[in-house]
């Protein structure tokens, strides 16, 4: 494993390499096993570069542990608003999640439905491309339309385009209070309808999840008076009981019900009202709905071609956990249409002209490594 200690060293390593490199942060989100690939770790680039609470801005080196960032923000009453999930429980990985890994995989949790994804809070990036050039895009200010938005392109690019060295975020205040309205006894379709009603209300629901057998959960956050008012309004609209505390949302965020047990784990992004029909077609062993129904987590018997089973559908299905034989059969990400695949391949060739970034999303390269 190569672990550069500075951005300049990172650039030298990439410029000099003759063989493909697989990039990792803390290695907690890898779906495909590392095999014999040469690993390039960003964990040597660590530390918060800037935190200006009054500007809602945080800049950190890409290998900075997420917990260090969470702690620094919490000390000023702030947080990363998009609530990135911790993949360790689901994937059985160990290690330390890094902020660069969050960006590279565009990891967002339940609050994504209300405030946006990791990519929506990412203000700027520095990265090294496949030619070993140190590049920057965006910056540290909240509004910036100067040139193309490669910040969004880098978010979720999973190491296809470059190695992140520094990332800048817009952060938000921590709420004073957080409560959950719990609805019991709804079937999937009724739950999605209730979540849609809640999300279409003026009460700023910051989480809407349905956990079959456990209930349907609606989160309200903010100042105490406001939360009391909103929760009461929602309860009047939908019924249910009000529950204090936030533990439930960490479980939903990390898909806790799927941690134990075997099987393939799929993650599907769809239009919320399509979700119950898709779940019915999938024939899954277990299901968890987040994002008001727009995000479906499924646990399936091993080796099933879920995409074929639910086709045709609008959205995309991602394989998040599977054994080696399933991984060899299906691409991790929903294949793009031909014209979009051509554009993506073209971009990849520009950012990585020598083809040295061996990402796990590329089945051939992953198999070769």
């Amino acid at each position, binding site marked *: 494993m190569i672990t550069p200690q500075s951005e300049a060293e990172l650039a030298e390593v990439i410029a000099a390499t003759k063989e493909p490199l697989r990039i990792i942060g803390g290695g907690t989100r890898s779906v495909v096993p590392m095999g014999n690939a040469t690993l390039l770790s960003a964990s040597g680039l660590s530390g918060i570069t800037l935190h200006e609470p*009054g500007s*809602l801005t945080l800049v950190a080196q890409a290998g900075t542990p997420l917990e260090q960032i969470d702690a620094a923000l919490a000390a000023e009453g702030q947080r990363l608003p998009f609530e990135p999930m911790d993949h360790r429980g689901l994937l059985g990985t160990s290690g330390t999640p890094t902020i660069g890994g969050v960006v590279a995989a*565009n990891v967002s949790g339940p609050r994504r439905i209300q405030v946006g994804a990791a*990519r929506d809070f990412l203000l700027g990036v520095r990265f090294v491309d496949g030619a070993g050039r140190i590049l*920057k895009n965006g910056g540290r200010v909240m509004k910036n339309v*100067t040139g193309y938005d490669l910040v969004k392109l880098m*978010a979720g690019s999973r190491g296809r385009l470059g190695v992140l060295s520094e990332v800048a975020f817009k952060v938000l205040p921590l709420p*004073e209070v957080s409560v959950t309205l719990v609805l019991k006894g709804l079937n999937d379709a009724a739950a999605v309808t209730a979540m849609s009603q809640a999300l279409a209300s003026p009460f700023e629901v910051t989480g809407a999840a349905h956990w079959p057998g456990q209930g349907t959960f609606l989160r309200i956050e903010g100042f105490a008076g406001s939360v009391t008012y909103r929760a009461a309004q929602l309860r009047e609209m939908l019924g249910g009981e009000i529950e204090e505390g936030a533990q439930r949302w960490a479980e939903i965020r990390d898909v806790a019900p799927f941690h134990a047990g075997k099987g393939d784990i799929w993650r599907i992004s769809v*239009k919320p009202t399509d979700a119950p029909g898709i779940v019915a077609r999938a024939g899954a062993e277990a299901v968890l709905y987040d994002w008001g129904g727009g995000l479906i987590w499924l646990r399936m018997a091993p080796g099933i071609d879920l995409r074929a089973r639910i086709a045709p559908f609008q959205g995309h299905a991602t394989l998040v956990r599977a054994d080696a034989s399933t991984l060899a059969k299906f691409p991790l990400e929903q294949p*793009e249409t031909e014209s979009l695949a051509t554009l993506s391949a073209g971009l990849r060739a520009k950012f990585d002209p020598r083809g040295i970034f061996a990402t796990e999303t590329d089945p051939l390269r992953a198999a070769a490594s």
Partner: protein
Amino acid sequence: MDMPTPNPAILAKKPRLVERLLNVLPNDAVIHLEAETRAYECDALTAYRCPPMVAVLPSTTQEVSDILRICHEMGVPVVPRGSGTSLAGGALPTADCVILGVARMNAVLETDYENRFVRVQSGRTNLSVTGAVQENDFFYAPDPSSQLACAIAGNIAMNSGGAHCLKYGVTTNNLMGVTMVLMDGTVVEIGGAHLDAPGLDLLGVICGSEGQLGVVTEATLRILRKPEGARPVLMGFDSNEVAGECVSDIIKAGVLPVAIEFMDRPCIRATEAFAKAGYPDCEALLIVEVEGSDAEIDEQLEKIVAIARRHNPVELRESKSADESARIWLGRKSAFGAMGQINDYMCLDGTIPVSQLPYVLRRIGEMSREYGLDVGNVFHAGDGNMHPLILFDANKPGDLELCEAFGADILRLCVEVGGCLTGEHGVGIEKRDLMVNQFAPDDLDIQMAVKDVFDPQWLLNPAKVFPLAASEARRAA
């Protein structure tokens, strides 16, 4: 501001081009007589004008595809145009280009309240997107000042913002999908009513690409339920520093207002003379607006007012009614008009870290004296998006050039303190040549490489965004 010399070989193709366009479009959608193309000679950056060779007004995605395929085959540059409200010259033609205007494509295609999105044709105006859903108490959040006129197509091209971005984000945060036509006529669908992308976030790079990667014909936009209410508080301070600290303290306290607007003394005075909103005569004025039910608004305003009091405001006026709210907003909303009464003005939109506000305002004041041109500042303080309005006399020889030089100095200052050249208007031609102040050559090269992928021949809006010297080899190829 230089533009490339028109290519005589392209100009010579005009008769054949018009003939081919008329084969795929109705007669009234192809504008080619010199008297008529003049209507498209400029956008809202009116200092620069040049009638295009031809203007076309398609009504469908298929027509857009036909137009682009023909222009691609004939090697004719195309400049896409929404409503022509760009302040940066994003829709400025060259004499050898086709202007592709999407104004006729203004239909609402799908409205879905359960899943909270609307799908529209891209020529629809920003405000009329909200207009289509407001009877159900929904709205489309990005609200650029030109929202009555500006088109969604232009909003996407420039990644437009507005006064309420602090809470709701800008266009890119509210855009879920597009139908887009590439320069060779290929129609692509990106995103839709679901969230996030499989693979690379192409939607993210298309938004804000200033019409250089493709022509967006349809857009899926996130719509939100209207808050129950909104009310502002107005506060006056005797220095910019104190007002800046107050902004910072409000944000640090955990209140997230929907808007924090800032006006400095020159702007307050001009506005007061024009609109008589009853603003105090002070150094700096803030308007902070919060949303929610009446009780929720009171809860937030109470916190904000307590913070403001610690900074010894010279005036503190909390709105208790819709009437009072309207009076507080009256001056702010008239600010541009008020400055326009005094003289011609140029409006910039560099963004800075909020912490640098007092320093930047002081430096702008010093530069104003050096250049001998007055400047008023009115801007979105919560997100550091400045709007210096530099006054000049367009009829006085040399004044425009002086004003541009002053503007360039302000933008360089924004970059120096950690900010950027443009927060919401876009680069266009206006800030094109300043890009080298914010980006190293490699940073610009990787952006231009993205255009190489989408538009290998550099036919779409080619003379914008990048310094002409930097893009010359690609445009000539």
